[in-house]
Structures are given as structure tokens and as C-alpha cells.
């Protein structure tokens, strides 16, 4: 029999839960509502999280684009998800929802962009103007 102390995060109340695991029997105490019970059971049977991070962008107005898993991934896979993105980068333009890496860390879940990053405008014009004026001044 195993006992685990958890803090429910379903609402700001933050009930202190004690979850008792005895084989297939799971019991939750300390909760004040059904949602707290469900949270307690899920946290000890199949805890999941959404992972958010960033990857570098080439040629964009920003240096990095923020991204997230398109759904919940198992809690013990979170670090694998991050590691699987070490070498990943993307070219601008990027739009919210664009898939940056499909099936990240073999979770069946994709990494999708959470920000729009447009392509960097060519800055040719901006440099031409001052040069011209500089010559004129001499």
C-alpha cells in the first residue's frame, strides 16, 4: 500500500489530498469535490502535462518562436519532449498552429507554434539611403 500527498490544482482552493494506492484500489481523501477526486486518481495513474518551450527561427523578425505540445503528454515524457527538440529549428514565416515537429519523442503528439513570426524584411533600402546622403555631403 502506498500513500501520496498531493495538492489539488483544479481550483484556487488547493486542497491537500492523500491518495492511497492499494493494487488496483485507489482512494482519495482530503478533497472537497468530485473534481478533486478525479485529479487525485489521474495524478497517480496517468499524470499528463502540456509542455511549452521555444525553438530558434531563421530569417524571422524574432529570434525564437514559442511552441507547445498539441495535447497532453505523459508527465514522465516531458524531459524527452524537450530533448527531442534540441536540434530543431524552423524558417520564418511561422503561424500559430504550424507543426514544428510531428510525433515528438514518439508520443503521438505534435509540437505546434504558439506565435506568429513573419519573415524579416530586407534592409537593403535602409542602408542605401544614408550612403547616398553621405556622398552628397562631401
Amino acid at each position, binding site marked *: 500500500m502506498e500513500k501520496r500527498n498531493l495538492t489539488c490544482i483544479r481550483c484556487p482552493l488547493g486542497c491537500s489530498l492523500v491518495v492511497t494506492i492499494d493494487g488496483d484500489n485507489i482512494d482519495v481523501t482530503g478533497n472537497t469535490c468530485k473534481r478533486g477526486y478525479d485529479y487525485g486518481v489521474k495524478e497517480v495513474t496517468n499524470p499528463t502535462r502540456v509542455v*511549452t518551450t521555444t525553438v530558434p527561427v531563421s530569417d524571422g523578425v524574432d529570434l525564437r518562436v514559442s*511552441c507547445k505540445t498539441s495535447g497532453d503528454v505523459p508527465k514522465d515524457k516531458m524531459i524527452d519532449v524537450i530533448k527531442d527538440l534540441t536540434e530543431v529549428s524552423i524558417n520564418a514565416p511561422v503561424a500559430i498552429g504550424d507543426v514544428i515537429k510531428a510525433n515528438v519523442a514518439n508520443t503521438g503528439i505534435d509540437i505546434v507554434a504558439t*506565435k506568429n513570426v513573419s519573415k524579416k524584411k530586407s534592409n537593403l533600402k535602409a542602408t542605401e539611403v544614408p550612403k547616398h546622403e553621405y556622398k552628397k555631403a562631401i
Partner: protein
Amino acid sequence: MRECDLVIIGGGPAGLAAAISAFDSGIKDILILERDKELGGILNQCIHNGFGLHTFKEELTGPEYASRFIDKVLERKIEYKLGTMVIDISKDKEVVAINPEEGLFHIKAKAVILAMGCRERSRGALNIPGYRPAGIFSAGTAQRLVNMEGYLPGREVVILGSGDIGLIMARRMTYEGAKVKVVAELMPYSGGLKRNIVQCLDDYDIPLKLSHTVIDIQGKERVTGVTIAEVDNTGKPIKGTEETYSCDTLLLSVGLIPENELSEMAGVELGITSGPIVNESLETNVPGIFACGNVLHVHDLVDYVSEEAGFAGKSAAHFIEDQKKFEDKGIEIQINTGDKVRYTVPKTVHPDIMEDEITVRLRTTNVFKNVYLNCYAGDKRIVHRKRPVIAPGEMENFQLKKEDIKDLKAEEIITVAFEEE
């Protein structure tokens, strides 16, 4: 000089929501002034999820939440200027701003909405002894470096303060390969949201030490270590409880302060929140200057910022359309902070001109269990609600109804308190 119906200072969540709501209330001549290179404000660096649970019933990341509002501003073709810094606002609502294209320019507005947000409390405000080595960052600076610039500020980290940004950065730095050794919090409770403590610290076995503070920072060129100690109930370090952690980085997440230098230039009076004192319309003491979002008081959820700013936008629209109504507001009733209440927003109400119902937001002074939120109009109790747990980190609110207070006399007051029954 350019004239404009409504000038909004700041293009973050508050400014965007205020602009959309003012537009939808009938004011089309709106100008948003934003100092950054893009709209969205601080949401752009808040890449974690959990935004919008109240507004959109789904968990969005900061940039996604911002884009929902930016899209609405673009759809309505509301004018905005980026890279534009407002340097002065006068009492008669003349705004002075600068940007590289136009230089210095003046705008005369019929109404102004202050939506400048807040900034982080810095090391200087804390009186931590020691040298000034590199490696000490505010949590928000670290957040910007990691999420937007792509730099990792350090490899071994101690965090002082358990505000939400500090908690979020504990997880973020862990993801990027840093080792977060401890989070020390001066108060006996955390100032952050419960879900952040669970998902950012507990998930990664990062210890949170309550009633602890930093008493020494080691290192001359770069931080090499930090000593923390337990504090007694007066906040003084207790001898013999010192622990030293070797680290190269110290992050400070020790509170946010509304950024009101511009408000003060305009003669706006500030209150206990360090933000403007406002009435039921979120109007400051200067007629036609409104305030909303973190410049007014620091919020814990952006959903509440959007809601509050939407109301400020509507109020400003009413002001522009019918200034007369705002000139003669009728009697003014004070909202008094009773037991266990640190502040309320608004601070005053004019029953004659108020909407049928307004939202009053408030924070408590400490952690309390099994109390009732009570609001009294004169001697009569008009709100009575059980609150199983209240904490300074979680904002409370209730609806104040016009019909409950319309018969109050000028000398009577409204009192809000948390009480045993």
C-alpha cells in the same frame, strides 16, 4: 497638433482589450501607443500555458492569448504606433510621445486610458548585502533572455521569492538544462498560484523554503554562491539556520510595482496599490483619464485584466460621448477597507451614474480559512459569501449592485471585510 478621441498608453493585454471595447462602444478615433516592437506586451514572453481559462474556456499560452486580442484590433483597423515612447501626459490630456520616424509629437486627446502595466521590484529595493557580481537577474529579465533572445542566464540557480514568474522560470530553466537548487520565500506562504507550485516546483522536486531569505551573495565578478537563512515572524534572520548553496545565478521574483511615472505627471493621485485611485468607472481623479490592468493594481490572471480593461474602454467611450454626465456625478461614496482587506478597486462609487452592476476587486492581507466576504452599505449587509481559503496571492471579487447602494447618503460609506460570520 493632432487631435484624437481616445489615446491608450500601452499595447499589452489591458491596452488591447480597452481599445476593442471602446471601439465596440462607438468610439472609432482611437490611437494605441506601444513602446515595444510588437503588440501583446508581457504576454509575448509568457510562453507557458494556462491563460484564458476564464475568457475562452481553454488553456492558451501567452502569445496565443495576445494574438486573439491583436486579431480583433487589426479587424477593427484600430490605429497603433509601435516603438513609440510616451514621455509626458498633461492634466488636459495632451500626450507627448517620441519614435524614430516622427521624432517628438503631441496629441490632444478627449480621453486617455493608462495601460502601462507594471515592472519588477529590483535588488536595490531589497537591501541584500554583498558585492554586485554578474548573475543576478529579475525573473522577468531571465524569462525574456530565455524565451525571446535564446540565452540561458546561468547553469546553477537559486531563486528568491515565490511569485509566479519565479516559479515559472524554475521550470523553464530546468527544461533548458539548468539546475534550480532552491526557491526561498520570505513570507510563510507563497505569493504564487497553487498550480504553479505544483507544476513548476513539485514536478521537478525543487524545494520551496518558506520564511527564508537571502542574507549573503558570494562572488566578485560572477555569483559563486548564495546563503539563505530562516527568518522569524518579524522578518529577521535566525542565527544558526544559514545554508549556503553554490550557484552562478540568483533570480529575484519579489513582486511587481505598477508603473505610474506618467500618471503622476498628469496629476493622477496614487493609492495603496501604487496605482491610481479610481471610481466606479475606473476613472482617476483627473477627469477623462482612466486606468486598467497592472498599472492600476497587479493582477494574477490576465483574464481579469482583459475584463477590467474592457470596462475601462467602455467607460472612456461613455465619457467621450457624454462629458456632461461625468461632470455632475452626484454624491460620492467611499469604499472602506475593513478587517483583513488590503485594498479594493474601485475606491469610490457614484451611485447616480454607475452601471447596474460593477465588479469590485480586492486582496486580503494574509492567509485565512473559513471566512465570509461581507460588504455593507451603511449598516446594511448587501454581500455575504463563504470563502473557504483566501490568500494575498489570489485576487477576490464581487458584484456591487446599484440598487443596493442607490439610497445611501453622502456621509455613509460602503465597507468590505472578511469576517468570521
